[in-house]
């Protein structure tokens, strides 16, 4: 619920009180205000869906009906026909005041159900409280029927059946990692260079496919031989791509027809009638043909996202909207003057709202790990052009301004900072942060370009096109650079590495032998023995997850099939291969390292108090851990307060961080992806630190099973960075952000009082300069005071629009669980 701002207060008064959410309501247009308030919140509140959110049974049923009907077709064709059936027949809608259209569910309050993804998720949907459409009994009957049909033939079932059973059980235990080894759920990079830079509409692509088909068909009636055998499959794939692209064009024209019907038969307001006719014209143009103006360009992009999400549950939203839509903004606003800046801001704001609206049914681990949002829609702004010049444009500024008006928690922005960014753009970034949005995160562009070249061999020009593929990891948007399918399954719960090293590989939480038996820690004589056990557990854990992902990726064209994503990717249009096939993909893999810093603080605590100071024995420590520190409070506080902690510029513990990272980087080069490339780690957490709180046992850093883990990446433990922001930056700066891993998330809390006004901006700018000089690749800020957050806990309705940075994403504070809220409040507010 969105409360009304105090009517008797001026914008200035509200700004002085830093109540930015009311400022936004007063400043934004009536249209944006209506659209922002009309959105149904699809992100989970803690782990639950909000009241009124319902499972979309219409799309799931349409898809299944056609899937059943075409049972003899190859998988890509079968999926294409099922998707086309959904696009042709599902209910569509146009919301009052909107100028952009398209939603992947059938009604505004529905969440899409990826019924062919995983039986486990399907059973979860059946068991989930509150989301069945009325009448509930009929819906349950329908869902049970669908679940029976899909049982055993979903994408994840197929992969899990052929995995080594031990790997399957351990992966599916939920203890050591998460994700699903299938592109049914994943982060799909998009070949934006092909679509937007190449100025292609679907009809242009179909023409290119037809040319490729003609060429291939000549071969199938030519000289017999082994080289023509796979062409038959490719021809099927090409047909599937065309089929689904044509369905996309038809789907857009359904909107055009609806808008025209509304304009001609229902709408009495002349201005709105014109808007509806503009919508009709736009949807008749795109996606069939390349866009000509900003509205068409944004609409085209939105359709692409909706179609891709009709095909698979995409958990991320890699995009670079200022770069690809910027030329249209420039043409409409600056050259042709067909749009005023205010009108453009309305479009840009609505473009964000349309993305905020998107949400599919997600399993509980994903909801808990991404509380308050539906996926990591991290859009990339800023950066450089292919020639290295500054890529920021007027649309970059418009996005940053629109964000402060619509104040959505998703999408958020990651800003590619580089030394040539103009002051006026940097100020806009700061304003967003100062307004408490928690975004944009700041990314060190020169460093990340170098990193992309180092790990995956992307050529310079391609590396410069990078976008956030999920929260953090850069990926080019080019023919060979784009990674069409990154599965979250290589997301490691790293705290288990040290936990298993201490317990000989046994997991006391799930009661199973999980890791390798690396020896009874009670008998370790020195730190080195413990560290070597840790290395073995690290190698085992990352290898298991990577094996799972590699198999999922390799078998995906056979087990799932992505006709739409293929149809908009140059590599597939040219080759006829499913885009998910690793052939021709340079590889851009990474292991997301959740709960990483617990390893460092735990190892340092054992080294210091057990092996160096000999204050405790290993037996004593293991007894305390097995008791979850119950009855050992004094000892626990000793391990928290009297052992060195990461983030204080203390070489004792920082050296352990470097050693752990470098061992892992060594192993990253041993493990290979299906394209033969490396698997660097990327420490970050989203809200996995809360999800895993009761899954990770007690640790020597002083946490009990149940306590939130640290907030992630290379961020110090909440409240444990006691030596100020420079010490945090110096600790983090010891890491080589090119060769030690793929990227490193850093959360910082700053004081809104200290950073008020021009002086505040100058302080922050100097901080960013130091951050860049020390060679860090990422930093993101929370700039909301403890007082405001506590007030929001006491009176959630009044503060329903307060946004916080969780980790890699932002959320409305009232949407996250109490444990997560407290974890954020516990973070140190740094004075800079």
């Amino acid at each position: 619920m969105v409360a009304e701002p105090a009517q008797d207060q001026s914008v200035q008064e509200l700004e002085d009180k830093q109540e930015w959410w009311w400022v936004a309501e007063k400043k934004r247009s009536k249209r944006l205000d209506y659209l922002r308030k009309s959105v149904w919140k699809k992100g989970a509140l803690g782990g639950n869906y909000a009241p009124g959110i319902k499972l979309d049974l219409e799309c799931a049923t349409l898809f299944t009906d056609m899937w059943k009907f075409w049972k003899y077709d190859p998988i890509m064709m079968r999926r294409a026909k099922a998707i086309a059936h959904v696009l042709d027949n599902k209910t569509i809608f146009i919301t009052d005041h909107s100028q952009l259209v398209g939603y992947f569910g059938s009604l505004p309050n529905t969440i899409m159900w990826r019924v062919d993804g995983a039986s486990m998720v399907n059973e979860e949907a059946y068991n989930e409280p509150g989301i069945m459409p009325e009448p509930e009994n009929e819906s349950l009957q329908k869902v049970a029927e669908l679940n029976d049909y899909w049982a055993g033939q979903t994408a994840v079932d197929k992969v899990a059946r052929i995995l080594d059973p031990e790997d399957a059980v351990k992966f599916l235990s939920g203890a050591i990692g998460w994700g699903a080894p299938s592109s049914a759920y994943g982060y799909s990079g998009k070949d934006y260079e092909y679509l937007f830079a190449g100025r292609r509409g679907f009809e242009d692509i179909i023409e290119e496919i037809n040319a490729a088909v003609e060429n291939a068909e000549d071969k199938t009636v030519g000289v017999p031989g082994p080289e023509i055998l796979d062409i038959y499959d490719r021809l099927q794939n090409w047909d599937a791509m065309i089929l689904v692209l044509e369905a996309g064009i038809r789907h857009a024209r359904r909107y055009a027809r609806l808008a025209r019907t509304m304009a001609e038969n229902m709408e009495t307001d002349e201005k709105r009638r014109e808007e509806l006719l503009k919508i009709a014209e736009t949807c008749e143009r795109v996606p069939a043909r390349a866009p000509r103006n900003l509205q068409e360009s944004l609409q085209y992009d939105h359709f692409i996202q909706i179609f891709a999400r009709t095909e698979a549950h995409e958990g991320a939203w890699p995009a670079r909207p200022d770069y690809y839509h910027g030329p249209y903004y420039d043409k409409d606003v600056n050259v042709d003057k067909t749009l005023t800046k205010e009108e453009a801001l309305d479009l840009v704001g609505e473009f964000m709202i349309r993305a905020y609206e998107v949400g599919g049914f997600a399993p509980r681990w994903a909801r808990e790990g991404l509380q308050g949002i539906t996926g990591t829609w991290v859009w990339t702004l800023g950066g450089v052009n292919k020639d290295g010049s500054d890529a920021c444009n007027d649309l970059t500024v418009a996005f940053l301004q629109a964000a402060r008006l619509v104040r959505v928690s998703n999408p958020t922005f990651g800003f590619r900072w580089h030394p040539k960014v103009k002051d006026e753009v940097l100020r806009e970034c700061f304003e967003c942060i100062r307004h408490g949005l928690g975004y944009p995160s700041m990314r060190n562009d020169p460093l990340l370009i170098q990193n992309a070249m180092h790990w995956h061999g992307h050529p310079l020009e391609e590396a410069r096109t990078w976008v956030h593929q999920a929260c953090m990891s850069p990926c080019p948007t080019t023919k060979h650079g784009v990674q069409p399918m990154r599965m979250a399954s290589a997301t490691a719960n790293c705290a288990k590495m040290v936990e298993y090293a201490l317990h000989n590989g046994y997991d006391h939480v799930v009661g199973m032998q999980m890791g390798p038996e690396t020896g009874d820690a009670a008998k370790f004589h020195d730190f080195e023995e413990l560290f070597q056990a840790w290395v073995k557990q690290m190698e085992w854990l990352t290898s298991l997850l990577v094996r799972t992902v590699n198999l999922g990726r390799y078998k995906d064209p056979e087990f799932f099939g992505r006709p739409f994503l293929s149809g908009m990717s140059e590599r597939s249009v040219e080759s006829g291969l499913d885009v998910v096939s690793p052939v021709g993909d340079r590889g851009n893999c990474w292991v997301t390292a959740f709960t990483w810093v617990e390893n460092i603080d735990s190892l340092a605590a054992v080294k210091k108090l057990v092996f160096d100071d000999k204050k405790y024995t290993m037996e004593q420590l293991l007894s305390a851990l097995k008791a979850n520190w119950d009855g050992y409070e004094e000892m626990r506080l000793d391990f928290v307060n009297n052992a060195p902690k990461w983030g204080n510029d203390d070489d004792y513990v920082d050296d352990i961080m470097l050693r752990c990272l470098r061992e892992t980087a060594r192993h990253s080069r041993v493990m290979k992806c299906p394209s033969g490339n490396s698997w660097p780690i990327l420490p970050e957490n989203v809200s996995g630190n809360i999800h895993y709180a009761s899954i990770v046992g007690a640790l020597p850093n002083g946490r009990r099973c149940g306590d939130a883990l640290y907030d992630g990446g290379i961020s110090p433990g909440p409240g444990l960075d006691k030596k100020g922001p420079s010490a945090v930056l110096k600790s983090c700066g010891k890491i080589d952000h090119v060769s030690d891993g793929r990227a490193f998330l850093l959360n910082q809390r700053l004081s809104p009082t200290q950073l008020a006004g021009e002086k505040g901006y100058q302080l922050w700018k100097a901080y960013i300069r130091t951050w860049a000089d020390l060679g860090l690749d990422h930093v993101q800020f929370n700039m909301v005071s403890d007082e405001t957050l506590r007030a929001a806990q006491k009176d959630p309705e009044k503060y329903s629009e307060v946004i916080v940075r969780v980790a890699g994403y932002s959320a409305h504070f009232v949407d996250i669980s109490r444990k997560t809220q407290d974890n954020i409040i516990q973070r140190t507010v740094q004075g800079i």
Partner: protein
Amino acid sequence: MSTCAECRSFFLREDEPGQGDCVRRVVDPRQAFYQSKPVREDNDASGCESFQKK
């Protein structure tokens, strides 16, 4: 038997004989919108709660 073609919400498609759209205004607890769903003109509408004779 009433058919969809007799309903005020039915809009025949010009380029597809027999095929039309059922276009209705809906106001849910958060927003107002028009929705559209494909229907055939000869669909039996006797069980439709939203049927309104033209």
